[in-house]
Each structure stands twice: as structure tokens, then as C-alpha cells.
């Protein structure tokens, strides 16, 4: 079944968000999302310094099958992109919540309400029914 770590926050579009000790946030796609996409072969992360609004398309993950947009869960500024993914996009499949992170951001607006792990699990249950 899908791995949904309890300490992360989620969106209905299958992004996760982790609060880092320095106040920044780390963002990626959920285990459910990587599994639905299949083997990833290309990942494009946003450039450092790019300002994003919550819900804005900011990254692209491409599997053998199709390209999918990733949407920013929050409004803020990109401070880092995961450069490892350029040569190892499969990290998103293997370690979606750790080595497969996509970007880190500085939040510059109040956070919209995100789902906790329980709410995201319920969202998935409805989605696959």
C-alpha cells in the first residue's frame, strides 16, 4: 500500500511538504503519485529564485508514459532544486520522501491549509474507489 509519512503535509494533487528546522520547506511528490506515474525518466525542477504562488505549476516529472506537472503547495521563493534528479530521476520512485525531494522554498505568504497524513489517506481512498 501507499506509504504516507505522518510528519508531512499533503495536497490533493499528491505533493508533500516538509517543514525544515531553518523555517524553509521541502517539497516532493507522494509515494502514490510516483507509483501512478511509473518509472520516471526526466525531472525538471524550478530555477533558484523563482517566485511561485500556491497552486502554480513549477516542476515537471516525466515517466516513460507521460509528463505531469507538479504544483507548488505554497506561495514562496525557490531556494534549492534537487540537482541529483537530472542524472537520477529514478530517485523519485525509489525514495519519494527523502532523496527524491524536488525543491526547497522560503514561504512568503501565510500557508494555505494542507492535508495531514490521515486526511491524505482518506483522499486517496476516495480517489481510487
Amino acid at each position, binding site marked *: 500500500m501507499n506509504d504516507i509519512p505522518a510528519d508531512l503535509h499533503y495536497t490533493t494533487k499528491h505533493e508533500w511538504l516538509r517543514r525544515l528546522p531553518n523555517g524553509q520547506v521541502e517539497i516532493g511528490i507522494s509515494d502514490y503519485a510516483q507509483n501512478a506515474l511509473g*518509472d520516471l525518466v*526526466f525531472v525538471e525542477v524550478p530555477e533558484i529564485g523563482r517566485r511561485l504562488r500556491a497552486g502554480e505549476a513549477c516542476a515537471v516529472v516525466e*515517466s*516513460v508514459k507521460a*509528463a505531469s506537472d507538479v504544483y507548488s503547495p505554497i506561495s514562496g521563493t525557490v531556494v534549492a532544486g534537487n540537482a541529483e534528479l537530472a542524472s537520477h530521476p529514478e530517485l523519485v520512485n525509489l525514495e519519494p520522501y527523502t532523496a527524491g525531494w524536488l525543491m526547497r522554498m522560503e514561504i512568503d505568504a501565510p500557508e494555505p491549509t494542507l492535508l495531514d497524513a490521515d486526511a491524505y489517506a482518506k483522499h486517496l481512498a476516495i480517489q481510487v474507489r
Partner: protein
Amino acid sequence: MGLKTPLYVTHLKSGAKIIDFGGWDMPLHYGSQVNEHHSVRRDAGVFDVSHMAIIDLKGARVLDMLRYLLANDVDRLKSPGKALYSCMLSADGGVIDDLIVFYLGPTWFRLVVNAGTRDKDLAWIGSYASRFAVQVIERIDLAMLAVQGPNAIAKTLPLLTPESRQIALQLAPFMGCFVGSWFIARTGYTGEDGFEIMVPAEEAAALWASLRAQDIAPIGLGARDTLRLEAGMNLYGQDMDESYHPLESGLAWTVAFDPPERDFSGRVALQTLRTSYTREMVGLVLNERGVLRRDQRVMSSLGEGLVTSGTYSPTLNASIGLARVPRGFGPNAQVEIRGKLHAARVIKPPFARYGKSSIHNSGSTP
């Protein structure tokens, strides 16, 4: 819920991810599409291709009918079991379907057609069958497995009886033969050697299990698509359909204009187009990171065209695609991906066959 092959439950038990394909519930992959692709290029894999339609045509005038219905000339098939790839064309030269035809005897041919075009094909063939007094028998009683890869034949042979093994071992490429209740053909859709085996539906699960026991990996439709694209083979409904003729679909080699006295559906239209057609199919290899996809624009100094199939090629570790472009396009092109231009090379397919890249001697580099 879609149509299901006799192996549907087997796929579920093997952990397949199921998708709809032409109305059929088929396995997309059994875990990793890329690993499945490598299994076929490097070792051996088995595909359930029972969704494809097997149609037997029988009658004294079946040869005459097929010489009219198919753009390739079935009169070239002289020995029983011999197969031919052909397009079936409308009067204006549009591709109704592409198919494999087997010559099984003077009054018996067997067609293998695409799943998504089954009804259309049966209607088209049926409209001629009555005229030629040919019997059309859809073989829904048969399942079909494809075993492909450098070790596919060696791993399959032990499942046969000693006599059958000798026959199967001697099959030349594009030949098939009956072995008991099975029909084994040395054909495929991957660019690798191997067999396609037609068996009574009730024997399919046992055959699948025996092949798996020979350490042959199960392969889904996802890898089937990347393998066929690397092999430079068209997918009906994607690279061509009734709005395109074979000459602009990379399939001129399958149209038998000789002998000139043979009339076939689409001939008159193609005869005119033969000198005047303006577009052709080419292969593209993306020089940069990214993935080619259907309907992306591709440009060169000669004009622009569209990608018809695009994917990531596990064998080349680069993105490849087929594109319909103005004739004479290349050797360099640019593809628009999400608003940005990316450099690509124009090559003559295939991209990969028999386990290796085949584009090094394509003449694409200046």
C-alpha cells in the same frame, strides 16, 4: 470494465498494473516498465497479446480477395507458414489497419490485426468476403503469447516435444508452423528474435506459467511500446490511421506496385501520390534532456512537422520519436517542448535492435 484476455487473472496475481487498451483490460507493467524493457533487449520476456484479433479466411478465391484487399502482395507467399506484413487501404489510400498475414494453404490465410480496429476490419473484410465467397472466422478461441529477446527461442524450445522442437528450431524469420494445437511463428514487435505463439485459450495460462518457469520475465504494454518504437515500428492509431497513406507513414516498402497488373484497394490513389507526396516519417533523437511526445512541433530549415510517437529509450538512454515532416527534412531539427526549443537529430529508424543501438551508421551526422 473492459474486455479481458484468458490471462487477465494471471496478470492480476502477478501484480500487474491494468490499463484500458483499445477496450481491453491489459497489463501496463508488472512493477517496472524500464526493467521489463531491458529484460527483452538482454534476455527474454513474455507478452500477452491475446487482445489482437486472429482472423482465418478460407475459400477457393481467398488469394484473389487478399491480393485486392492488401497493399502488399500475398502472392509472394509460396510456402505454407510464410508471413507478410501489409497495410489494408481504403480507396483513397488511407491506412485502415496494418496487419500480419500468414499463408497456411491454397485456400486458407490467417490475419493478425490490431485490437482497436477489430470491428472495423471485420466489417471491411466482410464486405468483400461475400463477393469472393470467402469464409471469415474470428478465432476468439485462441490466445496469443509473444516471447521475445536474445534468449527467447532457447528458453521456449524445452517446452516443446522433441519433434516439435526440431520444427520450431528450423523456423526462418517470418515463418510459422503448427505444432499440435499451437501455431508458432518467428515474428514479433520488439526488434528482437523470438516467437509468437497462438494457443487454445484454455491452454494459455499453463503456457504462460511454463514460460515464466523458464525464467522469462512478464512484460506489459508499456515496454511493448518502448521496444517497438526503438525498433522503428509504427503503432496504428498513433503513427498512422485512415487520414494518412503508407508513403507518408514510412511504409512505402510494404506497398507492392509490382506486378503492375495487380489491382488493389488504394492503388490508383497511391500511384498518383507516388511522385508527388510531400511528407515522410523520420526518426528523431533528442540531443538534450527531456522527452519527445506525440504532437510536439518539430522544425528544420525545410519547414515543420509533428511528432507522432515519442518516449524515453531505455537502450539509448535518450529520448526518441517518430515524426511526420516535409520530405528531405534534417539532418538537424528542433523540437518544441513546453515552449522551449530542443535540438534533435533526424535519423532513419530503427533506433535499436538485437539489444543494441542501431543509429551509429545512420548518416545523420554531417
